[in-house]
């Protein structure tokens, strides 16, 4: 009897243990990109910083009967003669799409660097330095405004680079290697698109150059990804080496223009100074309001208080100011009291479903931030649409420019009004997620989500209801988490929707949808 029980117990365990622990990441099962249309005329689409694709020079390619070209074809054949399983998996990984994969890499770098610096022994906080990125605190602290700006710059640069690429593809019209030589195997979906310059290499050149600025301490990882990506294109038979070299050079040249803009967009000064932080507090007191006070210990300076002055992508600074919402309910008003009581209610009453929502949208430290989350949502939707690379870049660029401008307008409101978090006004309000270290009004999550959902609903109207309900849930998650008042989230969504509309308006006239 007892032995039987033991055997049954052990048998049960072995059965249980045989269950696989392996996990499949959604992004690793994305299919190879097989564009439903080539967008052959994308060379005419409206660029963001370039005045025209001809701002960038791309040399005339050698003819396909030139010995140099034939040598390049042979390079592909050499690779293909003995393909390792590792090489095959590299090809499969990159074939899902260049814009997509580099957006994922960026999201990963953001998550890695989204950690607030630890305090100094004297209770002050160190600021990461771009000139010494590997020393603690490592550069950057990829917080939501930093991340929003990074996504926008990379994808906007990718868009201009790919419009330029498409312009030269059409101009030079050099066929893909597998069309020139039918004995070249092709390991990815074939395309009628000319292959010079390589769109994938244009993405590599642009992204690497932008990431030197944004993540200067991660060059080894970035370069390894870049080499792998370029090799995957040759192995797969999609490009010869000269396609790659021309694309990469083009991408680097375009990126330079965005790097120059980034250096002058005022983000570098967004940290501010002690004098400035004190001034903001004093201004708030002068208006008769209770000012925001850091709830961290030791008190941490607010996150990027001058980010509201950064140069927007979709509109000028006067427009940005005009988007600024009216003030939040006065901290001495009944409306404020009512708002605060509601937050207290959600804090006091634990509810598992609300906590699930809070967690799903938290996107706090060590994550890719709310803009990164919306990029993931967009990517998973776009994967099903079979866009060309240039259309991928255009949609990601507009989405991320909208979210960067949302960060700017949101931060402008936060530091104009400098109003306190619920936990500051009622210390009994405990939170179900980390309390962000900056003023409350308006909610960043709500502004990002409003902007993202508005633009994505334009791009994929059949999913508009879904995007809107996701934005509403993301917004509500901050109230449920007891870190925002209802006024923060409602006004945040309105502001976000307005900004998203600027991206929609641009999309209607950029040539891609006409």
């Amino acid at each position: 009897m007892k032995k039987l029980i033991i055997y049954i117990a052990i048998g049960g365990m072995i059965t249980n243990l045989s269950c696989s622990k392996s996990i499949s990441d959604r992004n690793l099962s994305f299919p190879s990109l097989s564009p439903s249309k080539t967008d052959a005329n994308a060379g005419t689409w409206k660029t963001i910083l370039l005045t025209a694709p001809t701002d960038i020079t791309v040399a005339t390619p050698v003819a396909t009967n030139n010995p140099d070209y034939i040598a390049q074809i042979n390079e592909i054949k050499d690779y293909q003669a003995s393909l390792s399983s590792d090489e095959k998996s590299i090809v499969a990984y990159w074939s899902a799409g260049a814009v997509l994969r580099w957006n994922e890499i960026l999201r990963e770098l953001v998550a890695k660097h989204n950690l607030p610096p630890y305090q100094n022994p004297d209770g002050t906080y160190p600021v990461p330095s771009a000139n010494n990125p590997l020393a603690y605190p490592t550069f950057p602290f990829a917080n939501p405004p930093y991340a929003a700006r990074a996504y926008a710059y990379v994808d906007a640069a990718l868009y201009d680079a790919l419009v330029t690429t498409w312009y030269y593809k059409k101009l030079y019209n050099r066929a893909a290697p597998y069309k020139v030589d039918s004995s070249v195997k092709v390991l990815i979906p074939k395309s009628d698109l000319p292959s010079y310059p390589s769109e994938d290499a244009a993405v590599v050149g642009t992204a690497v150059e932008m990431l030197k600025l944004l993540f200067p301490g991660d060059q080894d990882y970035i370069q390894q990804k870049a080499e792998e990506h370029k090799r995957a294109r040759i192995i797969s038979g999609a490009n010869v080496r000269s396609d790659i070299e021309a694309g990469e050079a083009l991408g680097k040249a375009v990126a330079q223009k965005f790097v120059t803009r980034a250096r002058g967009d005022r983000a570098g000064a967004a940290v501010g100074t002690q004098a400035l932080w004190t001034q903001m507090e004093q201004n708030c007191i002068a208006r008769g309001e209770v000012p925001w006070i850091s709830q961290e210990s030791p008190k941490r300076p607010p996150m990027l208080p001058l980010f509201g002055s950064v140069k927007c992508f979709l509109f000028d600074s006067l427009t940005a100011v005009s988007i600024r919402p009216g003030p939040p309910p006065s901290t001495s008003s009944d409306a404020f009291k009512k708002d605060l009581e509601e937050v207290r209610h959600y804090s006091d009453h634990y509810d598992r479903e609300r906590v699930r929502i809070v967690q799903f949208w938290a996107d706090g430290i060590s994550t890719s931030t709310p803009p990164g989350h919306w990029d993931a949502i967009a990517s998973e939707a776009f994967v099903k649409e079979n866009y060309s690379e240039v259309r991928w870049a255009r949609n990601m660029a507009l989405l991320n420019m909208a979210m960067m401008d949302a960060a700017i307008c949101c931060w402008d409101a936060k530091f104009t009004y400098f109003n306190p978090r619920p936990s500051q006004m009622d210390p009994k309000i405990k939170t179900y997620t980390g309390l962000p270290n900056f003023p409350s009004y308006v909610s960043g999550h709500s502004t990002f989500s409003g902007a993202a959902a508005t633009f994505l609903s334009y791009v994929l109207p059949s999913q508009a209801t879904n995007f809107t309900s996701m934005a509403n849930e993301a917004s509500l998650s901050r109230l449920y988490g007891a870190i925002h008042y209802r006024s923060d989230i409602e006004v945040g969504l309105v502001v976000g929707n307005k900004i998203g509309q600027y991206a929609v308006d641009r999309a209607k006239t950029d040539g891609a949808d006409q």
Partner: protein
Amino acid sequence: MTKYWKACIYTSIFLLIIGALPANAQTDIDGIMMTKNNFCVGGMYGYSSWKNYWEGTLKRNNLNLGTVSTQMISVMGNYGITDKLNIMVGAPYMMTKASAGTLHSMKGVQDGSLWLKWMPVEKTIGKGDLSIYGIAGASIPLANYEPDFLPLSIGLKSKTLSLRAMGDYQVGKFFATLSGTYVFRSNIKLDRDAYYTTEMHYTNEVKMPDVLSFNFRAGYRYGNWIAEAIVDKMNTLGGFDITRNNMPFPSNKMNATKVGANFKYEINAVHGLSVIASGNYVVAGRNVGQATTIEGGVFYIINFSKKAKKASLESKKQ
């Protein structure tokens, strides 16, 4: 061994939040069996707290957490199917709290556990008695609690299977027990659909590293008393370190070395009733809190065998 047939010593192993492990009845890890048809039932209260923790290998405090405390109330039962095969069950209710910062406390029923304890070998060697045990256990979350809120989560929500080999040797009034345990842990699911460990993962599922632990205890075991000192070493086989100033994550590497003592006293006045007190302290660790834990409990043995309960008790008691 039969001298100690009625011992029913339970202390829990709920410690170690940051990483809460399932709170287990500790009788699964001592050299004591319930005799056939005896059922021991009881309850424990425990309090554990830490102010310092290890962020990877760096020991630090956190002014935004202050002191993190866990309270536990558990019920446990142990039944002797035979003299050499016992079955045990336990379920705890946990409450966590941080004394500083804004994070909300958490509470709820954690993981239920079930153990089978088998003593295939019991023989006299030299001056003492040697007994060998094979022990198997399983735990499963009894409620849909939130594992992704460390260090205030009440548990990690992994289902576990434990296999343990144990030897116990007693000479006169003194004993020593050594055991080794392998804990298989199932993947867990988070409420979010992406997370970063040392790389990005686009899934809600987290691979939980298994755990290997060793436990040594020795002391006095005679008459109404058991008094023992304990050293316990737990190692997570894999997992990653908490990065600088990051929050803990369920699949972190969580190692801990604990020392402690347990006391059990059987009250003569009420037959079958015993009280337990225990304490332990984490002396070394990685990605865990340096917890101090105290516990107390009351247990009662019911003999379901019909024949001559009383006589049996008297004859076997020292």
